[in-house]
C-alpha cells in the first residue's frame, strides 16, 4: 500500500502551503489562475454529478494539484459504512486524479441519522478497535491509505482511557493509515480540555503525518470554538512552528470556512505559514494573485 501511495504522491506533488477552496473564490481563481501550490476541496460538496459543480472541479484539477477532505464517511459510527458514498468518492477521485483523501477521527451519523457535525468519540480500546476496522475497510476499498485528522472536542467521556495523542498514534499504527494534524484543534482542545501540547506533539508518529491544517477559532468566553472564521491565532502559530520544524516538508493547508475574507487575505496566511516552514527547509513558494 505504501508503494501505491508513494506513486500518487509523486505524480501529483502536494507541497508547500495550500488553501481550502471555497465557493466565493472559485470564479476569481479560475479566471486569474493565481499561483497557489495546491487546493483541498471538501469532497462532500463535489459528489454531485450534474450542473456547475463537476465542471468547476474539472477546471480546478486541470490547473492545480487537489486533495479531498471529507466529513461524511462517519468513520467512528457503529452504522455500516455508506458504500454508496464511498463508491462515489472513489469514482471522482480516480476521474480527477485526486492526490489523497482525508477524514476525521469522529462520527457524524448513527442509526441512519446525520448530525452534519464532527462528533467526538470516547478514546477507549473499543473505539480504537472500531476505528481501526473501519479505516482498514475504507483503505481496502479505495486501494490506498487515507489521512485521519484529529478533531476539536468540547466533551470529556467517562469511557475515555487513552490520551488523544496516544489514541491517534495507535490508530495510525494499527490501521496503517496516515495523519492530518490540525494544529488549531490541538490548541482548542488544550484550552477547553487542558491537553498537554508538548506531550501531544512528541507522541505523534512524525513519519505518518502527511498534512497539517491551520485555522482560526472563535472565542466564546468560557470556551473557544473551532469555527474557522478568523485568522490563525498567535498561540497556534507557535504550536505550528514546533510541529513543522520536525516535518518541514509536510504540506500545510489554511482553512477558512465562515466569514470568508478575500482570497488575498487567505493567501497572506498561507505565506506566513510558508515563511515559518521555510526556516526549516530550503526553497519556498511565492504567492502571487494578479
Amino acid at each position, binding site marked *: 500500500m505504501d508503494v501505491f501511495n508513494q506513486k500518487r504522491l509523486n505524480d501529483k506533488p502536494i507541497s508547500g502551503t495550500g488553501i481550502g477552496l471555497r465557493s466565493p473564490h472559485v470564479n476569481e481563481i479560475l479566471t486569474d489562475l493565481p499561483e497557489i501550490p495546491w487546493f483541498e476541496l471538501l469532497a*462532500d460538496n463535489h*459528489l*454531485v*454529478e*450534474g*450542473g*456547475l*459543480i463537476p*465542471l468547476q472541479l474539472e477546471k480546478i484539477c486541470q490547473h492545480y494539484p487537489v486533495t479531498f477532505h471529507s466529513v*461524511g464517511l*462517519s468513520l*467512528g*459510527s*457503529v452504522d455500516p459504512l*455508506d458504500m454508496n*458514498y464511498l463508491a462515489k468518492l472513489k469514482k471522482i477521485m480516480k476521474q480527477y486524479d485526486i492526490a489523497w483523501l482525508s477524514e476525521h477521527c469522529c*462520527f*457524524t*451519523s*448513527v*442509526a*441512519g*441519522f*446525520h*448530525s*452534519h*457535525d464532527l*462528533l467526538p*468519540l*470516547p478514546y*477507549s480500546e*473499543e*473505539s480504537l478497535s*472500531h476505528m481501526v476496522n473501519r479505516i482498514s475497510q475504507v483503505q481496502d476499498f479505495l486501494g490506498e491509505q487515507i489521512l485521519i485528522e484529529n478533531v476539536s472536542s*468540547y*466533551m*470529556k*467521556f*467517562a*469511557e475515555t482511557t487513552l490520551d488523544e495523542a496516544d489514541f491517534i498514534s495507535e490508530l495510525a499504527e494499527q490501521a496503517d493509515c496516515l495523519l492530518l494534524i490540525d494544529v488549531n484543534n490541538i490548541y482548542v482542545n488544550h484550552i*477547553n*480540555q*487542558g491537553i498537554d501540547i508538548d506531550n501531544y506533539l512528541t507522541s505523534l508518529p512524525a513519519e505518518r503525518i502527511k498534512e497539517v491544517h491551520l485555522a482560526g477559532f472563535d472565542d466564546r468566553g*468560557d*470556551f473557544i*470554538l473551532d469555527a474557522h472564521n478568523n485568522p490563525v491565532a498567535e498561540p497556534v502559530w507557535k504550536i505550528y512552528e514546533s510541529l513543522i520544524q520536525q516535518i518541514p516538508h509536510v504540506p500545510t493547508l489554511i482553512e477558512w470556512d465562515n466569514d470568508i475574507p478575500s482570497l488575498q487575505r487567505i493567501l497572506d496566511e498561507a505565506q506566513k505559514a510558508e515563511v515559518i516552514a521555510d526556516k526549516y527547509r530550503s526553497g519556498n513558494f511565492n504567492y502571487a494573485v494578479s
Partner: protein
Amino acid sequence: MPLANIEKTFMDNLLKSSVKESEFLTQLLPLSSLTKEKQLSIYKSNVNGAYQKVLGQVYPACLNILGEDYFNQLCRAYRFKYPSTDSDLNNYGEYFTVFVKEQSDLHDELNDFEYLAELALLEWHWHASFYADNDSSFAFEKLAKVEPSEQNILIFILSNSFSLHSSIYPVLDIWKANKSSVEGNQEFSMPEAETYFCISRVEFTPKITLLNNYQYELLKSISNGLSLTQLTERDFIAAGDFQNELTRFIQNGWVTGFSLLELRD
C-alpha cells in the same frame, strides 16, 4: 456504556426533542470550564446552527418574510420533526415545504402567509435544479424509428432539473422581492387567474418560465406518465398546437427523452 449506546444517546440528544439529557450526561465528566450540560449544549448549538444556515440558504425568501427569529424557531422544530437521513447536506431541506404546510395549518400567526408553502416549494425546486443530474440529449433519431403502433407505449421523460408549479398567489413576485433581501413595496396584488410556471436549469443556472394553461396541462400530463397516445386523447389537446408545444419543450430542454414501456424485439 458500549460505544453504540453512547453514539445513539448522543445523537438522540441532538435530534430528538423529548429526550432527557440525564442518561447521556452520566457518560460525561466535567471539564474545568465546561459543565457536562454545557458540553452537550455546545454540540446542540453547533448542529442547530448548521441546519439553520443551510435552510436559510435554500429558503432565503421564507427567511426574509418570516424574520430571523421566527424562521429559526421553524428550523429548530423542523430538525426534530424531519432529522437529516442523508449525508448530503444539500438534501436536508427537502421536507421543509411539507413542514411549512403542516405548521401553517397549526399556527394562527401563519394565517397571513397562506402562500408560504408554495413559496417554499418554489425555493426548494430552484435549489434542487442547480444540483440536479445532467440530462442526456434528446434522441431524435430513435424517435423517428418509433412505429405508429408503439405510440401507446411511448412516454416522454422530463429533465432532472425540471419542476412544474401553479399558484393562485403572487408567489413569483413575492419570491423576486425577497430572495436576496427584503426589497421594495411588500404589497402584492392577487393575480386574476392561477399562475403557471416551471423551473429548469439552462446550462448551469436555474430559470423560471411562465406557462399558459395549455402548456401547463400538457406538461402535467407528461409528468404524470401518460403515453403519447393518451396525450393526444386528452380533452384539452385540441385547444392548442400539440406538436409545436412538444417541439418547444424539447428545445427548451424540459423534455429530454422518451422510453417505450415495453421492449421491442
